[in-house]
């Protein structure tokens, strides 16, 4: 068993916790797991990437080479396109379509379109799961649950090598008690949305 997952987003979106939850679920399943995070200056609104490597055999490197990711979990469509070279042919992309415009886009008056990014992803030969993170956050009632919603979507799409139940267990063990209910709801809403209307 092997699952290589790249998580791409913008600093502040909660990618670090997402990687930690997936890794925790893998560890509890008795698997080897290594992750690598972007922590530091880039967390101030820059591009951030986490690598999560899960295997039933020892893992040498926390970082994976291009073409090695089974799954690309994208918090922002442009950041997914930026990291697409990590995805293996036929891999799965789970993406939140809402853009976070870089400051440079407004400044240079350049168009930054999430639709163009999603259109491009449709052409790239990957299995594409588009999950409306905004709608899920609105339904659950918090903007802070985007990360857990996307994990739920990815787990339901079979893209993590882990079941939704395994992820939920990890979530219950990792989060502060008062945050658990809301995040479990986000997880299952993400899973439901992923099953709905996606290949």
């Amino acid at each position, binding site marked *: 068993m092997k699952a290589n997952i790249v998580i791409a987003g*913008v*600093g*502040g979106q909660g990618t670090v916790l997402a*990687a*930690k939850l997936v*890794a*925790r679920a893998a*560890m509890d399943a008795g698997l*080897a*797991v*290594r*992750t*690598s*995070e*972007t*922590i*530091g*200056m*880039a*967390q*101030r*609104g*820059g*591009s951030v990437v986490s690598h999560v490597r899960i295997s039933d055999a020892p893992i*040498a*490197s*926390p*970082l*994976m*080479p*291009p*073409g090695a990711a089974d799954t690309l979990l994208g918090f922002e469509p*442009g*950041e997914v*396109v*930026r990291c*697409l*070279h990590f*995805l*293996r*042919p036929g891999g799965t992309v789970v993406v939140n379509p809402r853009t*976070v415009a*870089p*400051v*440079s*886009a*407004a*400044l*240079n*008056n*350049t168009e*930054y*379109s999430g639709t*163009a*990014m999603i259109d*491009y992803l449709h*052409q*790239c*030969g990957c299995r594409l799961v588009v999950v409306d993170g905004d709608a899920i956050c609105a339904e659950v009632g918090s*903007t802070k649950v985007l990360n857990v919603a996307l994990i739920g979507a990815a787990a339901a799409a079979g893209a993590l090598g882990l079941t939704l139940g395994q992820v939920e267990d990890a979530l219950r063990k990792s989060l502060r008690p008062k945050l658990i209910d809301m995040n479990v709801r986000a997880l299952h809403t993400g899973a439901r949305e992923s099953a709905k209307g996606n290949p």
Partner: protein
Amino acid sequence: MATEFLMGNEAIGLGALAAGVRVVTGYPGTPSSEILPTVSARNPGNIHVEWSVNEKVALEVAAGAAMAGARAMVTMKQVGLNVAADPLMSLAYLGVKGGMVVVVADDPGPISSQTEQDTRTFGLFSKLPVFDPASPEEAYEMVIDAFELSERHGTPVLFRPTTRVCHGNAPVALRESVAAASATVRFAKDPRWVIFPRLSYENHIKIEQRLPVIAEEFSSYRFNALAGEGRLGIVTQGISTGYVGEALAILGDLGHQLPAHKLLRVATPHPFPKRLALDFLDGLDRILVVEELDPFIERELQRLAGEKHLPITVLGKASGHIQVAGENTVVAVTQAIAGFLGVEAPSFAAPMPAAAPELAARPPVLCAGCSHRSAFIAVKRAMRKRRSVFSGDIGCYTLGNAKPLDMVDTCLCMGAGITMAQGLHVVEPNAVHFAFIGDSTFFHSGITGVINAVYNRTPIVVVVLDNATTAMTGLQPHPGTGATMMGAVSQKVDIATVLRGIGVMHVEKCDPLKLEESMAAVVRAVGATSNGVAALIFESPCIHVTPPGPGYIVDAEACECKECIIKLGCPAILSVDGKAVIDNTLCYGCDLCAQICMFDAIHPVSPAEVNG
């Protein structure tokens, strides 16, 4: 024995706890910042944990404790060791009684640093043993070993992880505490703790005698590993050990029959494990050294081959086989090893559909609502018609260099903005020289620079950007906040009082979120430089330590000037169909855009609009 999923830095902190550490000090700096808070969070109560004002102070506090016989650890990033170099170099001569581990996190890339310096080379320079872990789980075990070796040989030791170890995560098996925190030690008065030329000379001889003994120990050290047979050899260290493992697996998976080769991993680069290295060199024709930062192992092996007249070709950075700067990657290491072993390297380029949409760069930026942005705008506007130079410093506010703010003309190292502004003034006295410095950096190394300006009568404008935290490295407290890592709250050290106390005649505080008032304060401060140094303290807490205000909305009908977009570079302000639009999931309600809008088109969201 529990297994926890830990970040490398957390593993280092827990390793120190297991080793019975009694005193932990440090100054925050990426990638080292999470080590000390880990100890603090799990402090059973008998460990003194402190963020010190700077790395020199941190190292000296730890040294005092270790001289008394307690186990001590100090944490910093690589450039922090430059600040702490003075006590470290001398402490190497005096030695310690309790084990003392100096954790210095290096940052190949660099990802969040000013330099790509290599602390292994600092180990060579300071004649101190160096541990170089390759993973979080190894870092945990190795810290315990480092304390043990330090105490046994009476020397501080350097412990040098790199970013990918610090910020990598893995399951780590935790041990029971191997040593109890030494609560009963007492400082024994002895001339050995007073450095004098004669003592340094005598201790220098002892150090030179001790290093080969430690090198011999290191040749049998459990994390130094030699495997394989053949006439080719690959050597690696740290995180590159993982990349080499990955590369060999990738080449094997491609069905390549790899030629026989030896593999050496060096976990203790200084003093170099000579006997182990000679075992490795025995029978080899060619070697590839895969390491990051300095060609440290490469030089040691070249020297050893020369000393023993071995006809071995050593390939690495000097030969152009391994990149001289930046991080190693699985791709680069796989290509280097494939070339070295004479097999074809895989193409890592995945097939992509041709027309990828163009992606704007996304560098880090000041957050929406950041008070630094307001302070920069106030100074910029106030100085519109005066030739001014803006010296910056290290912190979030270094990001003020980006367009459209463009308010950081120099940045060198912690505290250097204040002092470089003085040098700039000397050669260009007709310009106004500003020095921006954050609150934590002010305490770290800003104060002495201000005293220098007062003493030498150099009329600069010191602008303290006081956001009540150490923001860039993760919101650590500092003397100005009064919070400590022991839970107690100290008396806050007031920056204005400090400035007045060291002789600054003009000291004014103002709220940077009030633009007109701030601009007037800037003008007053500049005027006051006729009497010497002037200081302006912009006080407004970091958005990460204060709740957001109401969001803002743009009246599209009235929106004409786009000043907010052109001048502020705020991530919450978007340009949609030629109009400014505020993203209220990001807006923090700082009000700056409303204050600079020439058409009065921006106003706070009313409760009705929130509910609607």
